[in-house]
């Protein structure tokens, strides 16, 4: 029986992506699509096999030949170490939410304005630091970014859509 799990969904997504690339490359001149086609079809076959293996674990157990980690137990300790840090669904959602918050904030407010806000919010609401400590860290981060990147490396950081519109007005 075929099991639909996170793993099969990920493999299926990769398969769709490669299939999309193959479909796109079919419109290219022959010389331009020669190598992508070869690699694409090879990858597609690998992903189909992997999808079957992911979705049918009883088959994986029988086809031990494909599990190189049984031959090279080099990842055993690493896997065990990682097992102790296994991500929980809720923590993942929170982590990605903070990442999205950072991206949106940077687009709207720019680096120099939003970075201290981000650090303050993260340390206060996620890391549960006190307001004072979070503010100090946020200020120190702003200073670090300004001195190192703006002054020393002379990088012009993005000022944000809102500030740019405000300056235009």
């Amino acid at each position: 029986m075929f099991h639909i799990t996170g793993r099969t969904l990920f493999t299926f997504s990769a398969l769709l992506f490669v299939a999309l690339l193959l479909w796109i490359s079919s419109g290219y001149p022959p010389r331009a699509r020669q190598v992508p086609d070869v690699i694409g079809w090879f990858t597609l076959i690998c992903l189909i096999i992997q999808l079957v293996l992911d979705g049918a674990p009883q088959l994986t157990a029988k086809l031990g030949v494909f599990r190189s980690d049984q031959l090279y137990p080099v990842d055993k300790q690493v896997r065990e170490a990682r097992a102790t840090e296994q991500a929980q669904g809720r923590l993942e959602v929170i982590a990605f939410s903070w990442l999205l918050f950072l991206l949106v904030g940077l687009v709207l407010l720019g680096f120099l304005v939003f970075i201290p806000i981000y650090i303050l919010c993260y340390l206060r609401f996620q890391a549960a630091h006190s307001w004072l400590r979070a503010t100090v860290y946020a200020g120190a981060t702003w200073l670090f970014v300004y001195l190192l990147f703006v002054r020393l490396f002379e990088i012009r950081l993005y000022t944000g859509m809102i500030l740019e519109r405000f300056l235009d007005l």
Partner: protein
Amino acid sequence: MLDSFLQSSSILFLGYSTIGFVTVPNFLIPILGTLIGMFFGILPGVSGITAMALLIPFTFSWDLIPTILLFGSIYGGGTYCGSITAILVNIPGTAPNAATCLDGYPMARKGQAKTALGASASASAVGAAFGVFVLIAMLPVMRATVLAFGPAEFFMLAVLGLAVIAVVSEGNMIKGLAAGGIGLLLAFSGRDPVTGTLRFTFGTLYLHDGIRLIPLFLGIFAVTEMISLAASSRKTISGLERVEQLTGSLWEGVFSIFRHFGLFVRSSIMGTIIGMIPGIGGTVASFVAYGHAAQSAKDSGQFGKGDIRGVIAPEACNDAKDGGSLVPVLAFGIPGSEGAALVMVAMILHGLIPGQELMTKNLHLAFLLIWALFLSNQLTSIIGVMIINQVVRATVIRTQLLVPFIFVLAVIGAYAERKALGDVLLTFIFGTIGYLMKKNEYPRVSLVIALILGELFEVNFRQAMRLHEFGRLDFFDRPIFLALVALTLVSLLYPVYRAWRSKSGTDLHRHLAGKT
């Protein structure tokens, strides 16, 4: 060659570089790189690779020489420190330090933490020196070899590298090959180097130059690791709430490599050779050395329970491989690991192309990189031993304190190269993809190295085919090409053969299984 060596030595010890508005003596840069590599190397889940990925965009304005010195020293600086958490808390700082956990942690639990750390430090330092000396000895051979390589050989070497990486990296071989294939397909985006056709741009101007490497590295290495940390339940990097007092004899550990000198030399040789093979990284090397130590010992009863030889062998091998791993990078431009890939990309972005050009016209720069690696490996052990108590405190840094700062550095780094918000978005996208790959055991290293090798792969393939079409190239008349084809087939088929022959796994596998 002696001239190049002397030139590089003069540049390092007598030269100065301007960084921003500051002029620094060149010999200070490896010290800085070592400290950066040490700091990142000691944090489980965050390694020197993360540091290099973060620093690449900020070193665009630097000259080539300080860049080489910085990245070479970060590359070598993190290896020893990864063993500190492996010994103290059974969590390897980097994957290659995993084998050190097997005996290092039991030693710490027996009150011999300092002894284990001392043994790790000396094995790392002297093993690294061994690898570097072999690398220098190989340079004349590399120069002669690289000139014998043509398009067919370079293409096949890229295939071999990708095949080996796919086989030995985490997860199974199919996933490794699939990840490599996707990496190659991503590499083909942008303008076709031969026909000029725009490929896989999805109608956006942004992708006309292809997938940018900086956002890729930052996303796959820095952002992915921080998401993993943020999503973990560990309050501190190591999981420990506080640092306990270290016990044991540091100097007994340091001098232990001389008591087990034969094992140390054999492990170093193994590391150097394994490091030379593209794709086989430190993880494989360290476990191979550990397995050899356990199997060759007359009294192997203590292995897994705190035998110092179980620390010496993997650490010597792991550090010796650094020198060996530069052989394919310097000679052929084929990186064998993420770290080597980042060092190579840093050089390429500053206009230094590895391969024939480096080995013929710019050999002094190759020596400069070797110097940086050598110095950082020695410094990291010396500094690590001197300030071991302070270094250990880094393991209790709060996870939630580190994560937002690394995120901020990553986005600034992504933006800094081209001042394009699209690069920031791409960083996030690759960070997400990298996390999902990590969670589903698809090897990120296969994707990254395939993406780096993509152009080399395609350009050399098409050149070779054109030469063949014109009758200027007979594949069967090229012994190096045929040897590489054979090696590729062996590397792909050998695991299948071994699995078919051995149902219960290798002796080492049984040995390890019995220990846990």
